[in-house]
């Protein structure tokens, strides 16, 4: 780890009731080549990501595929071992712990508090296990319940997510996509977690079912006092569900702000382009707006461009952008942005039409 060379530490101020504070998180995968399997380079999947999550809020993590949002989520639940940085977790009634480095039985404690919901309910549920086994397994592993107590717990969880407890002895194939996602949510909740990492939890669902699951996630958040890290590429869902949003581009957070601020008043050109690319469900709006179409593709995380990673596609790029990498900094209004010109640029958000009467 090279903490001493890193410019910033925590972004969070003392007034924030922070649950999780991620600082300069790194996850580099080695590229091995040749007979001797020498390491010839690194894929910088996560390359200095910093953000924080306040207790009880929903933080959206958005970006294109390959930007490292899923890898970040997996570092937080520690299914990947980060190669650098800190993940400070504020457990109840104790000092913050760096869960990027804890091991063994210590780690198991935090695994109870931080759970994950996966994208594809088809492939994340074992087809040979009944719902009782799937949802009860974490309870057994952590020695919390067994026998009839376990059944009661599983039944209650199924009821919480809107399924009938009688379904307990059925297998996943007997359920539709939306119901399977409910099972995945029940499993994530079985250990009374505090933080739930939802990785594209509604992306594979149809619109009508997606609305049901989004409502369910909100209800559960209130009932169980949950904090969500909601990873998604769908900006309209993120705007609807999240309190704050962090935007990632090639392994870095380029902007983080309150949802309303970010959508109305983005401070990073990438956020502006991303917002403008979302098709709006209103045919009357399509002729009026001039969309920013980004040219080219997302930069290669094993060979990123110099300076700001976004500069080859940025329409405001100046010479300095190719030389100096902008740090993620506070640009006022609770917004953090990693752009040299955040203050000067007047970027377009998604216009908020006046509320209907």
């Amino acid at each position, binding site marked *: 780890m090279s903490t001493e060379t890193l410019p910033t530490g925590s972004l969070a101020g003392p007034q924030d009731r922070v649950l999780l504070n991620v600082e300069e998180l790194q996850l580099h995968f080695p590229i091995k080549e040749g007979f001797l399997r020498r390491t010839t380079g690194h894929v910088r999947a996560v390359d200095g990501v910093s953000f924080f999550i306040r207790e009880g809020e929903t933080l959206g993590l958005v970006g294109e*595929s390959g930007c490292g949002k899923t890898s970040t989520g997996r570092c937080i639940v520690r299914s990947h071992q980060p190669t650098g940085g800190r993940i400070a977790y504020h457990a109840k009634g104790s000092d913050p712990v760096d869960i990027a480095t804890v091991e063994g039985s210590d780690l198991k404690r935090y695994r109870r508090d931080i759970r994950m919901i996966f994208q594809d309910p088809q492939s994340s549920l074992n087809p040979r296990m009944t719902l009782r086994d799937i949802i009860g397994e974490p309870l057994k592993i952590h020695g919390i319940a067994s026998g009839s107590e376990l059944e009661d717990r599983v039944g209650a969880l199924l009821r919480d997510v809107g399924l009938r407890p009688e379904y307990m002895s059925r297998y996943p194939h007997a359920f539709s996509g939306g119901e399977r996602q409910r099972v995945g949510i029940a499993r994530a909740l079985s250990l009374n977690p505090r933080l739930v990492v939802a990785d594209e939890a509604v992306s594979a669902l149809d619109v009508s079912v997606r609305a049901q699951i989004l409502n369910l996630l909100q209800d559960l958040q209130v009932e169980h006092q949950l904090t969500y890290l909601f990873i998604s590429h769908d900006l309209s*869902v993120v*705007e609807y569900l999240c309190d704050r949003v962090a935007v990632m581009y090639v392994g870095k957070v380029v902007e983080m702000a309150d949802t309303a601020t970010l*959508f109305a008043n983005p401070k990073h050109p990438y956020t502006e382009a991303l917002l403008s690319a979302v098709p709006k469900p209103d*045919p*009357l709006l399509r002729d009026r707006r001039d969309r920013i179409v*980004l040219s080219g593709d997302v930069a290669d995380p094993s060979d990123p461009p110099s300076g700001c990673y976004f500069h080859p596609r940025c329409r405001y790029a100046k010479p300095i952008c190719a030389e100096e990498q902008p740090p993620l900094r506070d640009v006022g209004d609770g917004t953090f942005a990693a752009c040299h010109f955040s203050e000067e640029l007047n970027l377009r958000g998604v216009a908020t039409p006046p509320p209907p009467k």
Partner: protein
Amino acid sequence: MQAAVGADLAQDSLLSVRSLKTQFPVDQGLVKAVDGASFEIRRGSTLCVVGESGCGKSVTARSILQIVDRPGRVVGGEMLFRRRLRNGSALTGEEEIVDLAKLDPKGAEIRDIRGRDIAMIFQEPMTSLSPVHTIGDQIVEAVHVHENLSKAEAKDRAVDVLQRVGVPKPKQRFDSYPFQLSGGLRQRAMIAMALVCNPVLLIADEPTTALDVTTQAQILELMHELQADYGMAIMFITHDLGVVAEMADDVVVMYLGLAVERGDVRSIFHNPQHPYTRALLRSIPKLGLGARTGPRTRLDTIRGMVPDPYNRPAGCPFHNRCDEFMPGTCDRIVPPPIQFGDRREVRCLLHGGAEEDTR
């Protein structure tokens, strides 16, 4: 064999699908994937087919080209297509009307139409392109199937069309394999393959669903440009209502194999008539509507889920999820198509059609 029919087809209509039925006899029963869908595609315009998974939108598209997977089969209905007549490979400027539903799926006639008059692009370019051939070879093959060109001429055509769809350095990319390209470039290569024979109708089955929003914006932009250049009609299948609002001239909403509502894009979005269309529009979060400014509102949902295909509800297929369900009517009578206004049609008993079958 001559499948030409002297049937009536409006002058601006390119393809008219009427009461199409496509069924899959499988062990568990008969799946009526498309059960009486009707719609029309006008020349040079874009028709979006929208619906949830399992509503039969992809099967409808495949039925048009007669490429339904076995054991599925087109069992009824008409698909009248206005086909350009050729003398050799040159267009004569005349047209005939062919009923695609009557053609043999393996016959020479439909094979001549596929890829030449009607081309199709698919959702996942990685699985629909051959991994062991270069994209150039795959495009050249598409040319050779339909036209008698020399190798060099065909290659020129392929490089030219790659350039048209915005593939940078098309000469070098001609020799690339699909795995060497990014998702957006693969989708461009597939569009190039579809356009190389100048089709009059391009069927796009969820072409941007697997892409990121920024890449999706590029591809949608490209399809707009190409439509303006080539003057082709597009049948665009999607479940994303945002894409529909962006692309469509006309919209068909499908539910369980039935076209429940159709019309021009503005009236579908701003004056939806079918309860399913209304529910669908209400259940999407709308970007920029400032949902976060007020207290958090709940999304409207549609009760339950799309029914099991083996177990279709009687009467109106939507009745058991509908908020305006009329007991004794909706669960008995299959709603007939009710036409009103210009190109508008709805299948819902709220709008009439219940009288003719009451006791």
